[in-house]
């Protein structure tokens, strides 16, 4: 019997359709159907200025907007041959890690609902709101920030931000214990999550699966360590790894990643306290525009001085490794922008890790994948 789970289904956490063939309650075959949220971001980007694409990046992955801005910005800066100041690098690192906490809390909220826990959803949303308040205080928005700019970030951190952030981090770090109590101390949680959705390390590599799913299979791979960008080579942290490659292992990896993110945030805050400075490169080409200013008349006059180049970037966003490829053939608009989302590969591998389990296992397994359909469909 084929059943359609989606596009309106409590399990999906987004807009996609999981077609499942079941025999009794056992899954025989799956066929994910994507594209319900395909907005043509790569096409729209071809008509946008380099800084205007950032707006689209927030909406590409709406739970990890700053990470996706960062992804695009690295590639765009490379394509335009620009170098951001060091303070901007640190602010981006800080933003990435705060975003990782917010995104993982959102994942936690959705995941516990999938296994029937209602209370932690509310707890996670409440703590996530604290992190979003921090975002709001320096970017002005809760979810769609438009904060990064080609050549730096839009504005510096407000006064008192670092102290406030430290307080929030202390609070959240203490809350992780409660989250673990609610899940790991429950026998039912282990009965539901242990040993399901197993995807071995070899299959992960074959199917391009990255991020917490890969690390839960025991592979110590993290772009922040292996191919450092921004200020990740100047902060200390450990790569969260777990064994088992099942839902519980992914849970453990994400919880540990949040703890490490708190650690990184504290280090960057210390650095930012000591090192004031510019956050935007001072010699930006005029046509790129200063932070709020649109491209002016001079910009068109300087057209023949446009640089050309290609930029490729790869960052460890909360869901896994994302890549961006920006082709600049000279002009105000990128010629072609291509993004690769980690969730894209993680869902494509569903035909490896779903069959053989029960229908009741689908929500925890797909919940442990941490799906953000916006970045899959783009």
């Amino acid at each position, binding site marked *: 019997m084929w059943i359609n789970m989606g*596009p*309106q*289904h*409590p399990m*999906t*956490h*987004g*807009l996609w359709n999981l077609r499942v063939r079941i025999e009794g309650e056992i899954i025989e075959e799956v066929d994910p159907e994507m*594209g*319900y*949220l*395909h*907005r*043509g*971001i790569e*096409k*729209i980007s071809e*008509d946008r200025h380099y800084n205007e694409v950032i*707006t*689209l990046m927030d*909406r590409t992955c*709406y*739970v990890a907007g700053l990470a996706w801005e960062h992804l695009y910005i690295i590639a765009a800066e490379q394509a335009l041959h620009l170098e951001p100041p060091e303070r901007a690098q640190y602010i981006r690192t800080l933003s990435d890690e705060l975003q990782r906490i917010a995104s993982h809390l*959102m994942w936690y*909220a959705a995941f516990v609902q999938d296994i029937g826990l209602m209370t932690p*959803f*509310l*707890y996670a*949303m*409440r703590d*996530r*709101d604290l992190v979003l308040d921090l975002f709001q205080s320096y970017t002005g928005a*809760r*979810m*769609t920030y438009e904060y990064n700019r080609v050549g730096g970030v839009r504005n510096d951190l407000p006064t008192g931000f670092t102290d406030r952030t430290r307080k929030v981090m202390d609070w959240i770090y203490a809350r992780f214990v409660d989250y673990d109590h609610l899940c790991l101390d429950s026998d039912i949680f282990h009965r539901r999550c242990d040993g399901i959705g197993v995807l071995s390390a070899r299959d992960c590599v074959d199917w391009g699966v990255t991020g917490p799913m890969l690390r839960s299979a025991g592979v110590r791979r993290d772009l922040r360590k292996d191919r450092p960008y921004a200020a990740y080579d100047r902060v200390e942290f450990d790569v969260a790894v777990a064994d088992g490659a099942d839902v519980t292992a992914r849970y453990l990896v994400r919880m540990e990643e949040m703890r490490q993110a708190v650690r990184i945030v504290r280090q960057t805050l210390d650095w930012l306290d000591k090192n004031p400075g510019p956050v935007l490169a001072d010699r930006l080409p005029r046509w790129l525009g200063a932070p709020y200013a649109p491209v002016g008349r001079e910009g068109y006059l300087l057209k023949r001085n446009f640089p050309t180049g290609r930029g490729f970037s790869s960052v460890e966003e909360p869901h896994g490794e994302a890549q961006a490829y920006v082709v600049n053939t000279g002009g105000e608009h990128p010629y072609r922008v291509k993004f690769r989302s980690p969730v894209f590969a993680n869902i494509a591998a569903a035909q490896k890790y779903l069959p053989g389990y029960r229908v009741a296992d689908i929500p925890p397994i797909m919940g442990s994948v941490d799906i953000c*359909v*916006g970045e899959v469909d783009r």
Partner: protein
Amino acid sequence: MSGSAPPPSRPAVPVAGDELPMVGQPAVPFIEIEALRAREFIPAAKEALTDMIGEQAQGKLIRPVFNWAGRNSLFPLHWGLACCAIEFAAAFGARWDAERFGVLPRSSPRQCDLLIVNGTVTWKVAHKLITLYEQIPEPKWVIAMGNCATGGGPFRTAYSVVPGVDKLVPVDVYIAGCPPRPEAMLDGILKLESLIRERGE
């Protein structure tokens, strides 16, 4: 009856009250005719009953009570489309707690009153959205949450995006924002409540 004569070869469809053929097999089984009669009786009886109760009583007593009930218990469909769905979820979180106003998301469209379109609607999902809207029993309302649902938002030029969900279903309340904050969503729901009160039904 526009005056033109019915075509002569039209087969006679017997309805309740028509002369029934007495010999041979009746064209329609007897029980169905009885059912037809009963079906005709029910609206007539309803009409008589409505007259009996009178417009006054209905307008002053029954309708306000049901209106109060309807506007105070709006069950939205539990459906996340895009970015706004995250803020939709946040509105049910501890800080905003939309359940204070009796707003309780249900997963089945049959049990909902309210379709909150929280995100970009693409042409691929358009007919599914219409199906869901049609599955919600009357009376029902639609809130277009966010710029994408209102008019396409930043993606309005894209080839795959519906420029505004009001092209597909009738919308009662539009909420601006990209995405709207949870307060804005709650405000939209309260706006809808006052709208229901104003409309009277």
